[in-house]
């Protein structure tokens, strides 16, 4: 499969940005300066980026409570995200949403979502908008193996098929819904679920950018061409707990270390593109350095940014009231 240098460069940069953003949050959260909860996407970067590489601002995605990666992959500004996570007035949601609710509708990012299974119904609606407004857009629901069992998700698979919507359902299967294993909580298979609703099923190794890029391309093309929805089942692993502070006592010793050592999407991407001379190592080094500065600057700016004011409390409950 041919992938342009531009897409490769942008995708590597997006994956590196997610990794550094999340690793930095892991460190900063431990200082106690970040309010609330954060759920990190480390280890899963290739999934969000490989899918969103096929999307434009016209297309819509809905995310999960593990949403930072999807936001960055869809182009949400990193400084605005960081400020939001710090609860600042300059945040992308003006400090009113926090980590679990980052959204930018102008970019087709319909929000991270604090409710498991909250996104798939919304994506049916976004896909309906794309269909009726005839903008050639597709709508993509990211959700986890946990959310794949929610009634709202299963209803959405049905509705999207009944209405023949341009929707893609991306199951990011990291093996755990919070602390409970998917091997316990998910009956049957995702493949059989897709077949049960009569939609095509694709699956891939979510730690391999090239695998995600290729299969997501097929699923999205199917939906965009008006043939109805598709399911993409992405197998991956999260490197941190369900939320920061989770000691992961439910995971075998060495499981995460092995994933980090063997399935690091950034390491494998670099190895692949340099071996076959698609990109030079020095170009990737430049991206790494540039992203590091960007994250440093975003954290510094967030820490220095003003807090919301009392008047902000009552703002924006309604358009008018």
């Amino acid at each position, binding site marked *: 499969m041919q992938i342009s240098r531009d897409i490769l460069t942008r995708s590597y940069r997006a994956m590196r940005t997610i990794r550094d953003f999340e690793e930095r949050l892991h460190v900063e959260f431990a200082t106690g300066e970040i309010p609330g909860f954060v759920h990190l996407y480390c280890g899963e970067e290739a999934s969000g980026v490989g899918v969103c590489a096929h999307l434009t601002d016209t297309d*819509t995605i*809905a995310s999960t409570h593990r949403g930072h990666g999807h936001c960055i992959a869809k182009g949400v500004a990193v400084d605005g995200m960081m400020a939001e996570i710090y609860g600042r007035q300059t*945040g*992308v*949601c*003006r*400090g*009113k*949403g926090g980590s679990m*609710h980052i*959204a*930018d*509708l*102008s970019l087709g990012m*319909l*929000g991270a*979502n*604090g*409710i498991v299974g*909250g996104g*798939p*119904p*919304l*994506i*049916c*609606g*976004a896909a*309906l*908008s*794309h269909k*009726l*407004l005839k903008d050639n857009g597709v*709508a993509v629901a990211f959700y986890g193996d946990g959310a794949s069992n929610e*009634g*709202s998700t299963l*209803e*959405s698979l*049905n*509705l999207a098929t*009944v*209405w023949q919507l341009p929707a893609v359902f991306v199951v990011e299967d990291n093996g755990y819904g919070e602390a409970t294993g998917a091997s316990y909580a998910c009956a049957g298979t995702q493949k059989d679920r897709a077949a049960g609703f009569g939609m095509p099923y694709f699956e891939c190794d979510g730690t391999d950018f090239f695998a995600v890029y290729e299969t997501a391309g097929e699923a999205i093309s199917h939906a965009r061409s008006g043939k109805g929805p598709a399911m993409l089942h992405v197998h991956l692993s999260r490197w941190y707990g369900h939320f920061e502070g989770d000691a992961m006592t439910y995971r075998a010793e060495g499981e995460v270390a092995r994933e980090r050592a063997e399935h690091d999407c950034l390491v494998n991407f670099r190895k692949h593109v340099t071996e076959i001379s698609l990109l030079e190592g020095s170009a990737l080094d430049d991206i790494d350095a540039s992203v590091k500065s960007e994250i440093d600057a975003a954290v510094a700016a967030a820490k220095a940014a003003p807090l919301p004011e009392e008047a902000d409390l009552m*703002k*924006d*409950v*309604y*358009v*008018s*009231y």
Partner: protein
Amino acid sequence: MSRKSFRQAINEALRQEMRRDPRVILMGEDVAGGRGGTSGVKDAWGGVLGVTKGLLTEFGEDRVLDTPITEASYIGAAAGAAATGLRPVAELMFVDFVGCCLDQIMNQAAKFRYMFGGKARTPLVIRAMYGAGFNAAAQHSQALYPLFTHIPGLKVVVPSSPYEAKGLLIEAIRDDDPVIFLENKVMYDDEEDVPDEPYTIPFGEANLTREGDDVTIVAFGRMVNLANQAADRLEKDGISCTVIDPRTTSPLDTGTILDCVADTGRLVIVDESSPRCNLATDVAALVAEEAFDALKAPIRRVVPPHTPVPFATVLENLYMPSVEKIEAAVRSVAAYRVKEEA
């Protein structure tokens, strides 16, 4: 201007708004009714009580969407469509079914604007029928407007007549926030003169259906009619009432309620929703806090008992507020005199 039923007034509001704005679409269970059936008649029902009859014929299958019986997905789809450029009117059929899709209303549609820092608009209307009086029993008879009123981000409309229904529904469709529009199922055949042309009635502006000197009655939805009937009877005995139809429970026209209580000093609230944490308790708290000095008698609430809605007619009649119960409450507050201190 012509005589129209509550049902026709709603149908006309939908039709006129769909003609005006191609982004307005309908979705819900059997809003057309008949797709996939063997008769080939695609709008066989036009809604379970015929409210949306004929709209499929005029606007086609893309804009009048029958849904599977899956409230979470299609109410959520309506919210998602509203956030991305359409102006959906979703029908929930019986408001009791909100139990199947509350997340999409409460945690999604209602929260988008605030949670996303003012950057979302969700011009969504959810229509549903409510209320007892139909022998529909506990799962098809509730008056759940307090549930929605409780949730910041939602607007809640409870129309009291065909004229009110048309103007308030057009306002709801043109509004940029999520609106819950609740139709009392006993009222669909009620008739009155309704203008043929489109018109709007603003939210948060109460209507005084009559003005009097002695007692203020605040009533919601169908209860406005019962309150007016009670006021007619009381007038003959020299007790004159103001009857307030707030029209919307969120926003609530607190100013008009307080002004009227300041004038009469006596307040009866008629609310057919379950009595704990309902609109009657809300209005009573408002008046106790803001107009204590004006009160000449205790506030009385005419509300059902704290039970599910019963099935048998005899029990349902006992359950519901009635003209007689309103009349008795008004007489008791009108006769009340503060005891002289010893």
